């Protein structure tokens, strides 16, 4: 399989060509969703297109937003605001922010003050997974989000539309789960660069349209004849919000890694299994988020220590090592690292800490670190 090279450009293009095309074709409204998890089913049920906002990447220079957010705040917060300053978010009619971290929450307010023409809706995601009342609360919150977006969409929200929307995103998440499983089983058939590009494309398209692309990619990758390379298998964590440049992901692979699981764009493929249908679509979605989601860094689940999830992932995917690829200044990720490090040490699983910023464009240092790490592992293996 060779991915259409145009997709690579699309995912980093802050003119959002796929979104513009959708808007011209349908005349619909667009909602920008800040990471990590956004209840995309709600705006989609209103006929809107929810899109992923992942900052400016390494294509946007921050000239205005750094007067609003200090130097110790992560890049995605500033570059997202910069996109608005330079008119790149004109294509967006409303914004969804979520209770993922303190800077993201404050960004919601700051955006609201500076760009009042583009309403910001702030979603409080539950953090008490042991309370039987959390699901009821989240269902009410999803309804509230629907009511807040309805005036922008210009139409009311009906339950059957929410079900249809859940189905549309279920098919996307199912396809992504299958692509991820394929990569884990035979990573030589689909690279992480390719898989990442496909998953990122999902965040910029109507799910009906991206489903066709994913289906074709799954078939093509399944048919691909490729010989496994002498690489180590790694699980990668820490990149759940701000995204590393695609070139950095490819550098990791070229340095001798098969990435067999990762948390890139995790909020768009959060469900471990399908949403269980019952009478109330909001409650069904809420229960699914609370009980069936992947381990998310920004979801605190006291039922399951977070390092256990990483160890399970390493074992399930038969990984040789774990790489923590964290965004600079990302406090939730950096907190997780302290827990991961202890658990990985105790389980004697080799691990490597790497830091990135979305705006980086030189990868030699990271590449050097990964190559040394891989060599040391292969050397240790050869000695055994």
């Amino acid at each position, binding site marked *: 399989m060779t991915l259409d090279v145009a997709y690579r450009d699309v995912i980093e293009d802050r003119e959002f060509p796929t979104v513009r095309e959708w808007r011209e074709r349908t005349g619909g409204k667009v909602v920008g969703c800040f990471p990590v998890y956004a209840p995309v089913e709600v705006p989609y049920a209103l006929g809107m297109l929810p899109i992923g906002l992942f900052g400016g990447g390494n294509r946007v220079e921050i000239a205005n937003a750094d007067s609003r957010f200090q130097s110790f705040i992560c890049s995605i917060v500033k570059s997202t605001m910069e996109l608005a300053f330079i008119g790149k978010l004109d294509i967006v009619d409303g914004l969804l922010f979520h209770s993922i971290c303190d800077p993201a929450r*404050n960004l*919601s307010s700051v955006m609201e003050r500076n760009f009042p023409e583009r309403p910001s809706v702030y979603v409080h995601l539950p953090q*008490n997974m042991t309370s039987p*009342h959390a699901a009821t609360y989240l269902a009410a919150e999803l309804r509230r989000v629907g009511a807040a977006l309805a005036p922008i969409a210009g139409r009311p929200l009906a339950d059957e539309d929410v079900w249809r929307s859940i189905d549309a995103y279920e098919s996307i998440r199912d396809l992504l789960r299958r692509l991820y499983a394929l990569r884990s089983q035979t990573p030589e058939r689909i690279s992480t660069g390719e898989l990442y590009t496909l998953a990122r494309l999902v965040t910029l398209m109507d799910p009906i349209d991206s489903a066709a692309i994913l289906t074709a990619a799954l078939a093509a990758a399944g048919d691909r004849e490729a010989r496994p390379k002498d690489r180590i298998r790694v699980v990668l964590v820490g990149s759940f919000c701000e995204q590393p440049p695609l070139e950095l992901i490819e550098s990791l692979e070229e340095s001798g890694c098969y990435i067999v699981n990762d948390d890139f764009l995790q909020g768009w493929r959060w469900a471990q299994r399908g949403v269980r249908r019952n009478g109330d679509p909001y409650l069904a979605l809420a229960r699914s988020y609370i009980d069936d989601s992947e381990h998310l860094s920004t979801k605190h689940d006291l039922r399951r*220590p977070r390092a256990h999830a990483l160890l399970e992932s390493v074992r399930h995917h038969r990984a040789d090592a774990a790489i923590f690829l964290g965004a600079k200044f990302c*406090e939730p990720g950096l907190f997780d690292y302290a*827990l991961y490090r202890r658990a990985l040490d105790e389980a004697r699983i080799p691990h490597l800490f790497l830091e990135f910023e979305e705006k980086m464009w030189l990868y030699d240092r990271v590449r050097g670190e990964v190559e040394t790490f891989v060599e040391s592992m292969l050397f240790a293996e050869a000695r055994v």
Partner: protein
Amino acid sequence: MKAAPEIGYRGTIHELQKRLMTRYYDDLTAIAQGGPGRSAQLLIAGNPVEVLRAFDMIPVFPEVNALQLAVRKASLPLIQKAEELGYATDNCAYVKADIGMWQGGGVAPFGTVPKPDILVCNYVGCNVYLNWFEHLAELVGAPAINIDVPFLRTPAGTPTDEDVAYVMAQLTELIQHLERITGAEFDEDKFRGIVERSARVGELWTRIKELTRRRPAPYDAYFDSVTMMAPLYCLRGTPEGLDFFERAYEEMSARAEAGTGPLPQERFRIVIEGPPPWPFLRAFRDMFSRWGAVAVASTYSTVGGLWEFGFRHDPAKPLESVARHMLEANLCNRSMLQRYSQIERYVSEWDADALVIHSVKSCRLFSAGQGDMREHFVHDRELPTLLIESDLEDPRYFSAAQLRNRIDAFFEALEQRRVTAGAIAAEAAARVPA
């Protein structure tokens, strides 16, 4: 170069606070050493101490422990210990100092913090709270629960009915947990009595805060308020806590009546936003005192509760009022824009000349976006505003010379502005024909 004047702010409440907090830590040390009693760890923002006090549990706040470590210049080695364990330089230093302290078994210069009987993560605004207690749960091995408090996010700026019901339901679950842990039944009358005392403390705290509307302000609403904040959280709901605030009000109102301020002369009235740099509190205070600058209001004094705009605990609806306190009556669970409005009220109703924003790296709840706050107050409100940076816990981020230069330049400009305004007014008056 001006020297900081002799500050006459040390009243009897400072001594009383010291005695009360020493006793508080002595009680905790006794528990840590195997004595009777129980403790629970929870967090400052919108804290529900009333529920814990109803079970005779001593509330322990890791932020208070961390700031005590910083004030006693003991935080840095603990922060470094945590960094050796994998915590990053960009992680909140309160958490790192606390983790470092637990590595040493909870032993601190002010006493020993016992292993809590329960960790109650009252998630009120600050996302780091969730990480912090998740880590503590692993480290100290105590049972942990989260109380998820929805952020104030509606255009009305008030909680939804579902938010109130959700928090009340979780408080009921907390009560059930505490019944299991203590073996005691929840005594609603006792709880109501505690809430009643909290309501009276809220009223007294409000009256104390209103005193700084006077000229001169009888105390500094930033540097002296922090003295009163420890009893506000650690002892709220107790008879000693109520007695402390009765005496504090008495003392502060007597000073106001006598026209006594914390400085020989009050030359500038400021509002301060953000937590203090605990490791250098006195040095930081002196940087303002030498200019005759007195804080007449501060946002930091509302992190645990915002009473001055009308909220009171309600003994007639005790559980609901504790839930509402968590949801809407504290700075941390309110949006940045609500904080802008809070500061605007302080500036106008407390008649302030300027805003000082102390941006701390550790606490992004406070600091993220304070550049926008400065833009708003300078450009939209034409209020002289100073933004300075250091940290609340980590002494490595406190650059005394740099801070002093910024503060001096700001007050020099403010003074110049005043002189110019005076000259213009005098000239205009002279032009008026007799």
